[in-house]
């Protein structure tokens, strides 16, 4: 089978000079003869098509009617059940759909069955006739000449300089899109020595004794909810996940020995990849999973990355308890939270 189906790979010539191949081409038989449609031959079919189009338009009218039934028969107020709202959405939608389909299918059916269906050939024209090009070239030459821009380079060059400079204000004026452009604000969070860990969203402080084995608390700094300005910005950096593990399971690196309290550890909830909240805590494997891009952090190894696109461990918040037994931060995070940025270092 295969052999005779292959064409000859290496005859001659290039595509651009394929002139000699022309002789080998088949004769174009031209457009196929027109085949009349049923509606062209049979007046009854024509009448039927006409009726069908009219019926389709009538269906469209019914669709519009249905829309208004849905619109006026159902009022929305506090007591509206969700199912009523869904019914209204359905009626409005189906009404619109029928109204549109009726018109659309009707018109197309009309065009297909009743309008002439003879295919017509139209000649293509040269996109750019040569004489036009010559005229245009001459015209542009004249324009340039009359303007004198070629003869007077001083004018030309100063104009270019002025034009380039004139664009700068249009860029510079956007400087105040942000009043603050100091990257160092990304290094600080609300956490500081003695700030209590509080429940998200209520803002009530947490006692160390509340955090039992296997628990996961979603934590904000106490006082966050009282902020009037910048609450979400502060929250976006400060959210913390608090968990308690068997202290024997923690592999603590030198210098961090006192960052946990009896196996209670606090880590930034903001992924070091691109900043989603890493909130999925598996209490038996001690893995933290980010639902956006599946970065997985191992809590027993100080949130080292074990899977996914993140490259850095989650920053740990050093914690201890105050005199009343509430969990408090020892300090702010020791490294910036969240995704990397150029100035992070």
């Amino acid at each position, binding site marked *: 089978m295969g052999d005779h189906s292959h064409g000859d790979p290496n005859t001659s010539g290039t595509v651009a000079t394929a002139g000699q191949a022309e002789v080998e081409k088949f004769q174009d038989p031209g457009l196929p003869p027109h085949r009349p449609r049923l509606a062209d031959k049979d007046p009854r079919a024509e009448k039927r098509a006409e009726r069908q189009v009219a019926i389709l338009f009538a269906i469209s009218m019914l669709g519009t009617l249905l829309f208004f039934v849905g619109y006026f028969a159902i009022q929305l107020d506090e007591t509206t059940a969700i199912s009523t709202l869904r019914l209204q959405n359905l009626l409005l939608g189906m009404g619109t759909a029928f109204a549109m389909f009726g018109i*659309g299918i009707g018109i197309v059916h009309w*065009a297909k069955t009743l309008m002439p269906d003879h295919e017509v050939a139209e000649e293509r024209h040269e996109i750019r006739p040569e004489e036009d090009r010559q005229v245009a070239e001459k015209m542009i030459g004249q324009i340039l000449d009359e303007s004198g821009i070629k003869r007077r380079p001083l004018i030309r060059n100063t104009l270019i300089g002025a034009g380039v400079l004139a664009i700068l204000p249009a860029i510079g004026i956007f400087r105040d899109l942000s009043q603050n452009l100091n990257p160092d604000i990304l290094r600080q969070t609300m956490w500081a020595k003695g700030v209590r860990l509080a429940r998200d969203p209520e803002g009530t402080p947490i006692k160390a004794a509340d955090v039992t084995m296997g628990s996961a608390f979603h934590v904000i700094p106490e006082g966050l909810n009282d902020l009037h300005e910048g609450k979400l910005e502060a929250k976006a950096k400060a959210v913390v996940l608090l968990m308690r593990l068997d202290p024997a399971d923690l592999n603590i690196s030198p210098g961090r020995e006192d960052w946990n309290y009896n196996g209670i550890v606090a880590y930034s909830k903001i992924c070091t990849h691109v900043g*989603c909240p890493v909130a999925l805590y598996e209490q038996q494997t001690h893995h933290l999973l980010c639902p956006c891009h599946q970065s997985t952090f191992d809590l027993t190894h100080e949130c080292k990355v074990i899977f996914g*696109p993140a490259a850095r461990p989650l920053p740990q918040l050093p914690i201890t308890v105050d005199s009343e037994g509430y969990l408090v931060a020892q300090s702010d995070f020791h490294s910036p939270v969240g*995704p990397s940025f150029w100035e992070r270092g």
Partner: protein
Amino acid sequence: MSATSSTENYVPKTSVGRIANFVDSRTGGSAMVKELGRKIFPDHWSFMFGEVALYSFVILLLSGTFLTFFFNPSMAETHYTGSYVPLQGVEMSVAYASTLDISFDVRGGLFMRQVHHWAALLFVASVSVHMLRVFFTGAFRRPRELNWVVGGVLLILALAAGFTGYSLPDDLLSGNGLRIIDGVIKAIPLVGTYISMLLFGGEFPGTAIVGRLYVLHILLVPAMILLMIAIHLFMLIVHKHTQYPGPGRTENNVVGYPVGPVYAAKAGGFFFIVFGVVALLAANFQILPIWDYGPYDPSPISAGTQPDWYIGFVDGALRLMPGVIGNFPFEFVILGHTLSLNVLLPALVPAGILFTLLFTWPWIERWVTRDDREHHLLDRPRNAPTRTGIGVAGVIWYCVMWAAASSDLIATHFHVSLNDVTYWLRVLFFLGPIVGYIVAKRIALALQRKDREIALHGRETGRIVRLPHGEFIEVHEPLDDYHQFRLVNFESPEVLPAQPDANGRISGKEKLRGRLSRLFFEDRVAPVTPAELEAAHEHGHHPAIEETAAETAAETQVTGR
């Protein structure tokens, strides 16, 4: 003067005629009617996707205008008092509250939101399918290269329009989407942090972003889309539409139906049909239930946080990239500055490669083939096997990244491990395009061979005939001239080896071009020539030896080189 006299000569008889004449004599409408009234458009289903895109854009403008009357793009804090019980009293932004009001307290508001969002998904999808059609049929070739570029710009603008709109309701899903964008922007060396702060008016999330995106979404981006559409359609009229090759269809004509009445009726009717489909979706299928996600708050997140489909491939690339291989992290600190390749590479490189190839493809192909002629006849994808293979490779590469964006849902729905899905997709990211290229190219070549078979021997009828000497053969029915012409009339470029330049030297660039030309056209199936057909028919009187005849014909051709 003469113009005045000619209008004076014509006196309209009806009142409609008088109005028409009034407008015409002041605008020159007659010239436009003369130019466009009977302009020919070819008819093929695959030519309709551009129209689908245009119509979904019109639907977007209509439904979007309705939504702007009720939406309030403010990030000021408020407490919800509307009629959706599970959110009453909850603290949220005004933007989110007004979107809830549109959904629950404005009659038809929910429907319009759903129409708008479904139309947006359809808009980007139809732009993409339209571009695929143009690519696979070679409609981007001269003189349409610039219009292809305009189309590419439209695709990017469509993505921009979609993304800016997605972020407006300030719900949990879009807020986390913005946060991902913020993380990606911050990874840009040197300027990333500043861009992020300028965009958000300080730190993420700030109180400015929704208002800013709103202006981009309802003013700047749609205005640019409109401008690009105008250019796109203007060039379409200048070029006239392409057509598939076939009897009576040449490079010098365009065969189809005149705008008035048939094409206008079909295209006009089709607008209503597209609107009907969108309305059908909006009536029956819920889209972006923002009340499920809740207001944006930087602490919570929902499982299955994904962008709309058209951003999915970037999100998937982000998921596929390993941050650490062994003990080697893809993040470096150089001279006190952090370079996050684990974010930058997946966010920029695949999209960069796809769009660079997309924009430059007409010139790449022109350079490889050295074909600078105008092409108004399209290629059937099988008749350009290498281009088809490369296109399929691109599509598969895109789809692997796209699938990666739903790796968690693949895991839960097919009961496999999330990690394994990622590992497999990482492999496919590299292997998929290669396999796709080879398979698609082979399929295209096989289809060409099948076409040759049919052209030479006619169609298999399924009728088995027993010859007097006992042999069974299947009767082949010869094609009529029109079908025959469809199968034999295509261009089949051949390898153009590297050519020496004027100094008789072959430059490195030219060598590369020669190699690419071989890659493109080494495997080729030539169209049937009249001589081959003649040979096949000579023996064809006796169907029994038809097979051998073709064999001989091919031999003849091979030895003829």
